[in-house]
C-alpha cells in the first residue's frame, strides 16, 4: 500500500493542502475501493469539517454540503424532492456512506444522483477560491473540477414538475442500465425550460437536448411525448459494459423516457 493519508481540521485547510494529484476522500465508496485495489497511489486528503454536512434551505433552493450522505438526503425535510433519487443509490450501507459531492465524480455506470442534479439545474460551489459554476461545467472535465464544498439545488416550483427513474436488472438494488431525470416547469399548461438528463448513456450524466427542444413550449400530452421519445438518444453514444450494450441502451432509452414522461403527465 503506497498511499499517505493527511487529515485536516477544516475544509479550508484541505483546499490549501490538496495541490495537484492528491485524492480527496469523502464517504469512501469510490476512493477506498481504488485504495483496496491498489489503483490509488500517493496523497489522500480528508477532513471531517461539519460544514460539509450542512443543508441550508433558502427561498427557491437548497444548499447541500458535499459531505451530506444519501441517507441524510432521504431523511431531510427540505430535500423531499430528492428522496426517491437518493434511495435509488446502492444499498443501505452505501447510502450511509456515499456523499452528494462524491456522486459528481462517480464513473459510469454510477452517478444516478448527479443525473437528477443535472436535470434540476444544480450549481457547484467550490472550496476556497472556487466560486460557483453550473454542474454541466464540472461534468465536462471532472479531473479538473477542484474541491467541491457544496451543491446548490433549485427546488422545483411544483414537486410534480420533477421526475426520476432508474432502470436496473436486479431489484431492489442494482447498478443502472440507465437512469433518467426530467424537470418540466409549466406555465399556463405549457412547458417552459424543459431539462432532461440521462445517466449511463455516456461517459458522464448528459442532457438530452433534442428531447428538451421538442418539449419546450408544448403541453405535456401523448403527441408531444411521442415526438420527444423519437429524438431521446440524438447526440448520445452510450457505452457497452457488462450490464448492457450500447445498442440495447439506445433501444430502451426512449421506452423509459416515455414511461417517466407519462407518469409525470398523470401527475
Amino acid at each position: 500500500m503506497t498511499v499517505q493519508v493527511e487529515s485536516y481540521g477544516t475544509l479550508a485547510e484541505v483546499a490549501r493542502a490538496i495541490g495537484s494529484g492528491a485524492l480527496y476522500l469523502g464517504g469512501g465508496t469510490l476512493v477506498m475501493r481504488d485504495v483496496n485495489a491498489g489503483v490509488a497511489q500517493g496523497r489522500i486528503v480528508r477532513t471531517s469539517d461539519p460544514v460539509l454536512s450542512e443543508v441550508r434551505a433558502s427561498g427557491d433552493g437548497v444548499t447541500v454540503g458535499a459531505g451530506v450522505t444519501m441517507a441524510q438526503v432521504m431523511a431531510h425535510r427540505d430535500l423531499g424532492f430528492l428522496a426517491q433519487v437518493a434511495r435509488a443509490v446502492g444499498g443501505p450501507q452505501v447510502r450511509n456512506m456515499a456523499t452528494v459531492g462524491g456522486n459528481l465524480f462517480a464513473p459510469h455506470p454510477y452517478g444516478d444522483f448527479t443525473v437528477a442534479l443535472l436535470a434540476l439545474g444544480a450549481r457547484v460551489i467550490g472550496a476556497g477560491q472556487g466560486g460557483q459554476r453550473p454542474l454541466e461545467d464540472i461534468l465536462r472535465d471532472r479531473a479538473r473540477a477542484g474541491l467541491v464544498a457544496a451543491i446548490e439545488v433549485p427546488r422545483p416550483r411544483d414537486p410534480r414538475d420533477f421526475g426520476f427513474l432508474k432502470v436496473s436488472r436486479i431489484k431492489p438494488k442494482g447498478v443502472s442500465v440507465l437512469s433518467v431525470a426530467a424537470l418540466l416547469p409549466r406555465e399556463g399548461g405549457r412547458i417552459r425550460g424543459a431539462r432532461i438528463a440521462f445517466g449511463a448513456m455516456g461517459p458522464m450524466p448528459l442532457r438530452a437536448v433534442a428531447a428538451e427542444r421538442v418539449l419546450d413550449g408544448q403541453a405535456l400530452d401523448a403527441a408531444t411525448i411521442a415526438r420527444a421519445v423519437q429524438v431521446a438518444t440524438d447526440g448520445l453514444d452510450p457505452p457497452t459494459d457488462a450490464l448492457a450494450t450500447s445498442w440495447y441502451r439506445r433501444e430502451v432509452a426512449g421506452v423509459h423516457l416515455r414511461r417517466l414522461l407519462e407518469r409525470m403527465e398523470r401527475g
Partner: protein
Amino acid sequence: MAKKPVTITLNGAERAAFADDGQNLLEFLRRGVGDLSPKYGCGQGTCGACTVTIDGETHLACLTLAESVQGKRIETAAGLANGTLHPLQDAFMEHFAAQCGYCTPGMLVSAKALLDRNPAPTREDVVEAISGNLCRCTGYEPIIAAILSVAQGRARA
C-alpha cells in the same frame, strides 16, 4: 509506513491498535483488533459481507478508512451473543438461513440495525434492509423468514 493509533469502542469494550496508512476498517478489525466476524468478500462495496455499524449506522468496513473511526462505537456480529445466542442468531439456525455462512455476519448486522430502528418491519422493509448484502446460497427467502420471525416474536416458538 506511518502507523496511526486508533481507539474504538468495539461491541461495548474499548479497544486500541495501530492502523497503517490507507488501511481499511475491515483489515483493522480482523488483523489489528482480532475480531474475525466481519468478512472480506469483494473489497469494493458490492457484497456487504464486511457490514458493521458505526455509531448505530450500517457501514461497509472494507470501504471505511480505519483512522476515520477514531473514538467511534462499532458493533459487529461478534457482539451479538451475550452468554446465549441473540434471537436473530437462533432464528437464522431455526430457518436454515445460513448455508455456507459467509454472508451471515453481515446479514446479522444489517438485520439487527433494522430491528433496532424498526421493531415491526414489513417484508418489504426486510428486503430493503438486506439489499446491500449478497447471499449466493439461500435465495434470501430463509433469511427474510428468520428476520421476520424475530420481529414477530416467534424466534423461540
